[in-house]
Structures are given as structure tokens and as C-alpha cells.
């Protein structure tokens, strides 16, 4: 990895080149990357599933996230917790992926729109696999920012950390989480009664 290389990311029909060199990884960088993967590898795998349904593209996205994460540790800022750093990088790569892959007539919705839609297709199912599929399809209908919040909520991330990762104010995060809870309650528990 000693060579200084230039990477490229093809975006649409135009070639977008990153001029920043990719230098050899430092020992610190490798250690931090290994540490991050040990702690958040499974969460990253779940995150990739929420961003891409197609298995082939999912594999590529997973590699992109790992690659960018490894690169990002070259300038890891210790003021930021490892979790915030990892999720920030992963979600930002995921959101860029959604924008690049977005089809012309695909309609992603925000939480507010999903809230009004979700009551229409509510079904009761206690089968784990089908519930997971339903949860995945629900997440994949969301716009990137709302998708990030629901994923962070499902990963048990506290509101303050969600704010740090997404850049949303505490009030905005609280409002979004409230909506998420209502949607999930309606979808999975037949109503809003279980939301505290």
C-alpha cells in the first residue's frame, strides 16, 4: 500500500475523481479499523441491508463502507466517540449510494408520509423472518435522513448520539423518534398502545 494512488468514483455518466492520495495505512489506522469492525461489524452488516436490497450491490456497498471507514481513520478525531464516527461514515456512504442508485420514478418518502401510509398495509404476523422482511421494506422506502434515524433507533442509539451523527437538533430527533415509534407500533403491534 505504499503507492500513492488516485481513486475514482463514477457518478452517473461523468467521472468524478478524488484527487486525494491514498497512502499506506498507518498502524494506528489499522488498529482503529480492526477495533471498529470488532465492535460494530454486525451493526454495519445490518445497516448495509437497510440501504441496498440487491445482494450484489449490497456486497459492493459493504465494501465501499469498509473502504471509506478504513480511509477515514487516517484522520480520526478522538473528540468524537468511535460509535459516532463509524455510524457517521457508514450512513454518509449509504446516503450517497441511495442518491447514485436512485431510479427516475422511485419515490422515497419521509417519516410523515410513511406515517399516513403505514396504516393501510398493516398486517399481523408473528413470523420472525416475515417481520424482518417487512421491517426492511419499511426502512427501504424512507429517504436517507429518516432512514438513518430509524436505523440508529433500532440499534439502540441514544437521542444525543443520533443528534451528533445526523446533525439534527434534539427537538427534531425527539419528534422523529416519536413518529418512528408510532409507525413501528402500528406495523408490528397492531396499534400505538405499546409506545411509552
Amino acid at each position, binding site marked *: *500500500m505504499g503507492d500513492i*494512488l*488516485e*481513486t*475514482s*468514483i463514477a457518478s*452517473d*455518466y*461523468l*467521472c*468524478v*475523481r*478524488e*484527487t486525494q492520495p*491514498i497512502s499506506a495505512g498507518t498502524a494506528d489506522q*489499522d488498529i482503529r479499523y*480492526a477495533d471498529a*469492525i470488532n465492535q460494530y*461489524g454486525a451493526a454495519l*452488516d445490518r445497516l448495509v*441491508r437497510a440501504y441496498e436490497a440487491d445482494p450484489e450491490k449490497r456486497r459492493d456497498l*459493504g*465494501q465501499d463502507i*469498509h*473502504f471509506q471507514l*478504513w480511509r*477515514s481513520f487516517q484522520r*480520526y*478525531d478522538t473528540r468524537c466517540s468511535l460509535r459516532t464516527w463509524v455510524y*457517521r*461514515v457508514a450512513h*454518509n*456512504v449509504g446516503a*450517497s449510494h441511495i*442518491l*447514485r442508485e436512485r431510479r*427516475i420514478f422511485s419515490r422515497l418518502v*419521509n417519516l410523515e408520509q410513511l406515517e399516513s401510509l403505514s396504516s393501510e398495509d398493516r398486517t399481523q*404476523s*408473528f413470523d*420472525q423472518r416475515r*417481520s*424482518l422482511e417487512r*421491517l426492511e421494506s419499511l426502512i427501504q422506502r424512507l*429517504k436517507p*435522513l429518516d432512514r*438513518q434515524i430509524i436505523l440508529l433507533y*433500532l*440499534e*439502540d442509539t441514544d437521542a444525543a448520539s443520533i443528534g*451528533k*451523527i*445526523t*446533525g439534527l*437538533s434534539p*427537538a427534531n430527533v425527539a419528534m422523529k423518534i416519536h413518529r418512528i415509534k408510532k409507525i*413501528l407500533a402500528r406495523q*408490528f*403491534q397492531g396499534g400505538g398502545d*405499546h409506545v411509552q
Partner: protein
Amino acid sequence: MFNDSLPNDPKSIWKNQPTEPSKMTLKMIHRKTQRLHTKTRRELLNSIGVSLSVVGLSIFGITRVHGSAMRAFFVLTIGWTLAAQYFVYRGSVTDSGPSDVSLYTSLQSYRREVERQLSLSSRFLLWAFGPIMLGFGVIGALLFAIAGPHGFLRVAIPYLTLLGISFIGVVFIRIQQQHALQREIGELKEIEKSNHC
């Protein structure tokens, strides 16, 4: 919070799904970097190849036609094609890519990405799609010059119709995309505004 004892608790459904955590080795990262490097080089070469073909055809056209209007058309094609190479790659180099992903919050990063896509989309119409269509125009003009108006029209009408439809289609789709991206920027600005309230 949800009651975790319920069998349909979304958090437990989500967290208990089977995962295959992967770790990229340095070897894999090196391979990926090389692949990206090759891809950039290939795309650059393809783009230069297409531009050179258009320029070559235009020069050939200048030597074949006599009217000053047609010559001006070929000169315009050469100029636009060369300018397109410059603007497409100059713009691309100044754009920042996902190497910045760790520096920004999701909101900032997403807005930057949407703005970048919008800029790419407008650049595509002006500096990539424009010269390609002009390239087809050059071929058409050459055939016109070689076959004469009657022979040309008899052969070319179906192709010209297809070309016209695809031109309108691409422009329509791109404009729709640009509107969608602009709407998205508007929504993100609203979120940013509400953040400060």
C-alpha cells in the same frame, strides 16, 4: 420504548437478524483501489476516444462541405467537444468525494451530495450529452453531404425520429431529476432552519 418481551418487537427483530460481518483486509483495499484506478483511466480514455472521433469526423466534414454555415457547424462541434472535456474533468476534480464522509454530519453530507448530483446532472446535459448529440449531428451532416438531400432523407428519417425521441426523453428525464433534487435541497434547508428554532 417497546416492550421487549413481545415477540414482534422491531428492535429485537432487527438486532437478532443473522449477519455476516465482513472485514476488509489490506489486500482487499489495495485491490479495490487498483480497480477504481483502472476504472478512472478506462473512463477517461473512452471519453477522450469519443471526443477524438467527433473531432476527426468534424475535420473530415470541413474538408468535404463547401457552405460556410456547415463549416461553422463543424467548427462549433470541435470547440464544444474540446471544451466539454475540459469542463467535465475540471469540475470533477474540484468536487469532493466520499473521502469527506467522516467530517460532516449526515445532514451536511447529504445536502452536499444532493448539490453535487444536481451540479453533475446540469453538467451532463451541457457538457456530455450536448457534444454527443452534436456528434450525431456531424454524422448526419456528413451523410447529407455525401448522399445528397433525397438519398439522405430516405435513409435517415427513421434514425432521425429515434434520435429526436431519445433526445427529448433524456432531456425530460434529466430535468425531472433536477427538479426532484432541487425539491430535496429545499426540504433539507427546511430541516436546517427548524434545527435553529
